[in-house]
């Protein structure tokens, strides 16, 4: 008792110190276990190891055959090798018992080549014991997700021995998810015991345990079992839960797919919808945005060397890390917008301004431009896709009642809302927007009353292209960034705009969300391949019925 009080006191005063003491103890116990003479002794000692996180590395190495013995003359010392190797392929060694660098009797660090060494043997039985020890360790892992999966693993093993361990952990656990997992695991273990089975079944049903579905259905299908009824009820509970969770999940996924369609098509809704330019290079503007993101990412990181057209350009890197590095994505958004807008501007000045009254020629010309752009990407960035890593705050998810809300998916929905509102504000509340609308309605009339239509055309096209660039910046987070990435999206873009009604941004919003929702709803039933075909067939039928799309833009001009 006194010892315990003392320990608590010490813990309060100098946690670091005590931790080190117990760590050292645990380490030497592990070293003893590894050094034990027989397999049985090793198993016995391993089973008694304390759950100290510091043992994790050693245990994993032991199980995977990465622990070696060094004969120092006096004793055999167990050690593991460092992952890093020097130029000769040699790596440093660390002692299991102290965690320090392994030194020879003369006090010099010893270096080894891993292929020259013979690892300590482990039997299958011992490896299982090591695994259990690792599972125990995982119960105290700082990461809740790792803790949760360790708990579930113990539960699924249905071994009575773990029950006490789980219950001991229960009051210490602060995370709600892990606490539920602890309950679920305990119930799973209790499921094996006829005395506690009925209660366990009820609990699993109440916890909506998807993992126990198989076990419960075996009970439900066994006519001899007294708990058939209970198991059926629990299964029904879980079934209902799964279908609700799938329903909301599909809703969310449809919304996120719709948002992606919307952000890629919004730019086209302006250049094609408002201006009437059949812009086949729209996909490549998306790619410009994605590549811009890639460049910004590298500038925030280690820099980038490019060799376009025989020149070599070395972009110096800022070598940032952590949150500052992660902020690259926020910087890349305006950069992507500006780059794509600039390319759009150039295209408009060089090609499209001569083709406003000839839509078919604009189709051919922009298609040519799209091929030129794709080839330029290959020349500048290489034919292979480039890697864009998502910032930390865009990776991961929050899971709510088994519906996964990926952060990047939540982001894209918000992002779509923001750029739609932004575009709407620009078009309706700014002088530029007024001019744009005037020119788009009747170009000649606007010119007559003194609007510089050429400039407005230029700005409108740049705006549409810039929006495509923004879409590209986001797509680089969930998809490939490569020379042909635009090709994947161009069909979807036109589809969305045409279904929505050319010249109508509200229409584009409705059609993007509609297509996304239908696609995601069909997928679980008929698969992605048939789903896609069905969506396209539905669109064809829809356009037969309403050739002008969802929302018809009323126009006084005869040319439409």
């Amino acid at each position, binding site marked *: 008792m006194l010892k315990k009080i003392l320990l608590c006191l010490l813990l309060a005063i100098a946690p670091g110190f005590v931790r080190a003491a117990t760590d050292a103890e645990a380490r030497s116990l592990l070293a003893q276990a590894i050094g034990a003479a027989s397999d049985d002794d090793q198993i016995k000692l391993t089973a008694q190891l304390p759950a100290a996180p510091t043992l994790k590395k050693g245990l994993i190495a032991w199980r995977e055959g990465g622990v070696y013995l060094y004969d120092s003359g006096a004793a055999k010392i167990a050690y593991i090798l460092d992952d890093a190797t020097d130029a000769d392929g040699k790596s440093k060694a660390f002692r299991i018992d102290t965690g320090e660098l392994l030194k020879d009797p003369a006090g010099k660090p010893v270096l080894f080549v*891993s292929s020259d060494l013979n690892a300590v043997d482990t039997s299958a039985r011992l490896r299982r014991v090591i695994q259990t020890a690792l599972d125990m360790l995982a119960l105290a892992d700082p990461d809740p997700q790792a803790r949760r999966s360790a708990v579930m693993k113990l539960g699924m093993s249905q071994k009575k021995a773990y029950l006490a361990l789980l219950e001991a952990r229960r009051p210490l656990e602060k995370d709600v998810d892990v606490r539920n997992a602890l309950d679920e695991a305990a119930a799973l273990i209790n499921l094996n015991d006829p005395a506690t089975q009925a209660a366990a079944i009820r609990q699993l049903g109440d916890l909506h345990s998807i993992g126990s579905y198989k076990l419960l259905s075996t009970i439900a299908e066994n006519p001899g079992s007294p708990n058939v009824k209970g198991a059926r009820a629990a299964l029904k509970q879980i079934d209902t839960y799964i279908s609700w969770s799938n329903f909301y999940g599909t809703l969310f996924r449809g919304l996120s797919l719709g948002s992606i369609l919307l952000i890629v098509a919004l730019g086209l809704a302006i250049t094609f919808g408002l201006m009437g330019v059949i812009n086949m290079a729209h996909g490549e503007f998306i790619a410009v945005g994605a590549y811009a993101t890639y460049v910004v990412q590298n500038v925030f990181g280690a820099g980038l060397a490019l060799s376009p057209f025989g020149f070599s350009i070395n972009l110096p890197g800022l070598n940032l890390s952590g949150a500052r590095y992660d902020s690259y994505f926020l910087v890349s958004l305006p950069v992507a917008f500006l780059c794509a807008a600039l390319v759009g501007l150039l295209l408009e000045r060089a090609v499209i301004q001569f083709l406003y009254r000839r839509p078919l020629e604009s189709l051919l010309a922009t298609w040519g431009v799209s091929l030129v752009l794709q080839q330029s990407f290959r020349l500048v960035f290489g*034919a292979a*896709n480039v890697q*864009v890593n998502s910032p930390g705050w865009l990776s991961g998810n929050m899971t709510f009642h088994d519906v996964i809300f990926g952060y990047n998916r939540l982001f894209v929905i918000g992002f779509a809302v923001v750029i739609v509102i932004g575009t709407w504000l620009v078009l309706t509340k700014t002088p530029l927007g007024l001019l744009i609308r005037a020119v788009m309605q009747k170009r000649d009339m606007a010119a007559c009353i003194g609007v510089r239509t050429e400039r407005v055309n230029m700005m409108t096209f740049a705006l549409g292209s810039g929006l495509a660039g923004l879409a590209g910046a986001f797509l680089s987070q969930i998809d490939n960034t490569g020379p042909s990435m635009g090709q994947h999206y161009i069909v979807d873009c036109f589809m969305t705009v045409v279904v929505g009604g050319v010249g109508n941004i509200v229409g584009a919003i409705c059609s993007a969300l509609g297509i996304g929702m239908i696609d995601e709803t069909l997928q679980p039933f008929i698969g*992605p391949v048939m789903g896609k075909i069905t969506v396209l067939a539905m669109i064809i039928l829809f356009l037969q019925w309403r050739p002008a799309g969802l929302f018809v833009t009323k126009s006084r001009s005869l040319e439409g």
Partner: protein
Amino acid sequence: MARLLLSSGFAAVINLKKTHSIDMIKSSRLFGSLLASLAILATPLKSKAAEDTIKVGVLHDLSGTMAISETSLRDILLFAFDEINKKGGVLGKKIEPVIVDPGSDWPTFATLAKRLLEQDKVAVVFGCWTSVSRKSCLPVFEKDNGMLFYPVQYEGEELSKNIFYTAEAVNQQATPAVDYLLEQGKKKFYLVGTDYVYPQTTNLVLLEYLRSKGIPLENIGGGLRKDDSGKVISAGKYTPFGHTDYQQIVADIKQFAASGDACVINTINGDSNVPFFKEIANSGLSAADCPVVSLSLSEDELRSLPTKNLVGELGCWSYFMSLDTAANKKFKANWAEWLKNDAPAEVKKEKRVTCSPMVLSYDGVYLWKAAVEKAKSFDVDKVREVLESGDITFDGPGGKTTVQKNHHVTKNVYVGETKANGQFKILKEFKQVYGEPFLKGTFMKGQ
């Protein structure tokens, strides 16, 4: 669609003209890559004195969608030829590669194969990646009695007397991977792939294999499709080429994996792996709980994937770059040396890796050389007879390879775990696995 047809037709026309021999590529080293093809068109075909060289065909896509993967195979072949030529060639003759580019257009494979065999009269052809390209030129090889070495893992169910498959058969990749997962205590298998012949066939074979191992049907995820008689005609979830939206599939996998003893067998091809793995990573499915073993991702593909999201996922091949053997170290050093000093201008020099398809291509060249030397002739029938004898072996970078009577190759198979640097950590080795192309219906026999 029309657009695709138009552009591929266009590519075919250009590529027909682009047939050239390697010394010409070297002569155009000074020009930029844009000028290179023009220069080649302009230079008349010249060939070295025919007596001391032997022509060998290289039939890989160097443009179009497959170029990313197949260009590496051309490079490794050029390396192997240079290596052999430096040591005196084959039967005293230097190898003269004839490189053609079908431009990722399947019918063009047949046209160019015909051209290689009938016009250039090559002794042997190394080529093809996709099964559809192989199937497209197979009739040509059979009609003209040519010889093709095919190096990329494939679905089996094929055996032509004119093709030697150094490729991994299903029992040299997919089933060893399953064996490893079963050994790890996995009981549920989710099958997902791209919708074409290789994933569909492989998954059907795997379905039989899993059933023979006592895995019940409800433990196989992704769904089954049956025909009217109740026979399973398709197992697993399939997505079109270039698919980007994996939300539903990953949600489905997550539910499937809730019991903690599930894994995923991934035969998704190419680019689509990026959105797939990003979605997996974001959904919180960890490799420790539900590992994904990918049958189409080697080191070469990992170069353009976000490897951060793939750490801990599995791969199964008959060679890994990280293999710690003397043969592999020497091979990698020679390859790096060649890239630095001897490689022609169009071979990319930076960030190069080696991977299983490349090594199997390389092995193929040496196996052919060994057979030619034993037959003392370049004649296709004689070389084939020697290859079929089962005596031809080569100690390649991935271990010993032996050509079998059934035109497949006995070789080692390795299971590896992806690391953050795009390399694999080797977890398990299956020694000298016999390649068996016809697997459908064989697993259940003993039961």
